[in-house]
């Protein structure tokens, strides 16, 4: 009984714990104002909100690309604080995909995916290549392994970027408007890859403007505006019975 209880507890134990974080770029403008949330292992949290609401900044705080002024962030039990060691540890557990890909242009696709495995996980080239090939196949660009990023389409580049982020076997994946810089006909192929990841049980925090996609893959939705959380709810409730008037107005406009 006791064992069962503790087993249950570890299942619902959140892997991302964010407690009332605040951040301002200049003294007056608060980009994040007392934001808190939790993400359970295996869940997909989608963050939506108008431009400038602080959703990207919030995401970038989760792996320490941005510093916070107040509050605490706990990733898989590790506090994201001023200690460089903790920061590195967290970044090894958290993969991130950017709006404009940011592949390393001087390396081939394979080298892009191999790099962190070799440097961070200290794998040999052969070991790294094995996993990289699998990942590239998973995202459907295994035929481009020897090619440089500038010879790829936007959709292909983003899929390589996803493979690169997965190469460290992260426990959490962050997606920062991963399809916003893509031509419309390439959005689908990238969303497919992210959807597969969600189905595989990857814990993800996704900032997106694709509402249909958000509704489909997410377990919870967090709506932000002016750096504040307006509403956070399980997906179905969020879209069907939003509690806040502001959320209803936003959804009316975009759906």
């Amino acid at each position: 009984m006791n064992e069962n209880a503790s087993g249950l507890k570890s299942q619902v134990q959140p892997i991302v714990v964010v407690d009332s974080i605040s951040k301002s770029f200049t003294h007056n403008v608060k980009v994040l104002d007392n934001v808190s949330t939790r993400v359970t292992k295996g869940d997909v949290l989608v963050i939506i909100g108008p431009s400038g609401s602080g959703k990207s900044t919030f995401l970038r705080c989760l792996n320490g690309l941005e510093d916070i002024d107040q509050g605490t962030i706990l990733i898989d039990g590790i506090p994201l604080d001023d200690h460089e060691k903790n920061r590195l540890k967290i970044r090894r557990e958290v993969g991130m995909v950017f709006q404009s890909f940011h592949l390393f242009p001087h390396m081939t696709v394979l080298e892009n995916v191999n790099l962190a495995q070799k440097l961070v996980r200290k794998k040999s080239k052969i070991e790294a290549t094995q996993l990289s090939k699998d990942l590239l196949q998973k995202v459907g660009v295994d035929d481009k392994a020897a090619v440089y990023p500038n010879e790829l389409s936007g959709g292909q580049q983003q899929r390589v970027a996803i493979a690169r982020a997965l190469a460290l076997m992260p426990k959490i994946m962050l997606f920062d408007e991963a399809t916003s810089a893509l031509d419309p006909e390439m959005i689908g192929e990238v969303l497919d890859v992210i959807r597969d990841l969600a189905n595989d049980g990857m814990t993800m925090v996704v900032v997106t403007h694709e509402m249909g996609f958000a509704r489909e893959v997410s377990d919870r939705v967090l709506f932000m505006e002016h750096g504040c959380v307006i509403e956070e709810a399980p997906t179905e409730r969020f879209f069907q019975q939003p509690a806040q008037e502001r959320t209803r107005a936003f959804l009316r406009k975009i759906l």
Partner: protein
Amino acid sequence: MTRKKKNVLHVYRDISVFAAFSCLFGWLVVRGGREIAYTWHWNQIPRYFFQVDDGVYVSGPLMNGLQVTLQIIGLSLVLAGILGLTTALLRMSTSPVGRWIARIYLEIIRNTPLLVQIFFLYFVMAPILDVGRFATAVLALGMFEGAYASEIFRAGICSIGRGQWEAAYSSGLSTFDTYRKVILPQAIRRILPPLTSQAVSLVKDSALVSTIAVYDLTMEGRTVIAETFLTFEIWFTVAGMYLFITLILSAIASLLEKYVPQRTA
């Protein structure tokens, strides 16, 4: 008129203008040469390169000087590269002391004449540190060109977009690995052209070390002139030898540029 015909006409016009100016320049040189009534003795020059005595190769003063100059250039290029990169990284580091040191070094070196620096190192520092003329020369040149190289390095590093840093950091790379594997390889490719012209400057500036009696190419040339009064021939020859070194440097740089293609995101 078709565009192609027009282009051909342009080329003919350019060539004839160029030929006219060349003729004018050549005429001026020849006339000037007659005016100064100088008797040229080009036939005496080869033996200052090297002589063959009884089948044994004996290098002359110009070859000895060239060798010393090449050694100085090689060593101070390495020193300038190390100092330049270190200074650039210090200036961009989070340590305030590091940034200060880099800044002070940079401002002192860039805002005083190289000749004064050479004298200062030779007459003040060399006795204290107990180093010879050759080492002083390498040190002075390396420090001087290193200051300029550091600004080139810094510009190159700054030209790499923030996204590359973020991508590397979020892959769990340390700052050291990010520089080594992501930032510098991209930056080096971009700064190769300005770095080459800095290296060419170093070659030419190296002539100044003759002032502290380092027997480099310039010093050897001056000595030969003092003995033979072949002023024009020797200085032309020495200039040609410097040109030879710098052209080789430029050729190496353009080869590198050709075989290391620039790739942008």
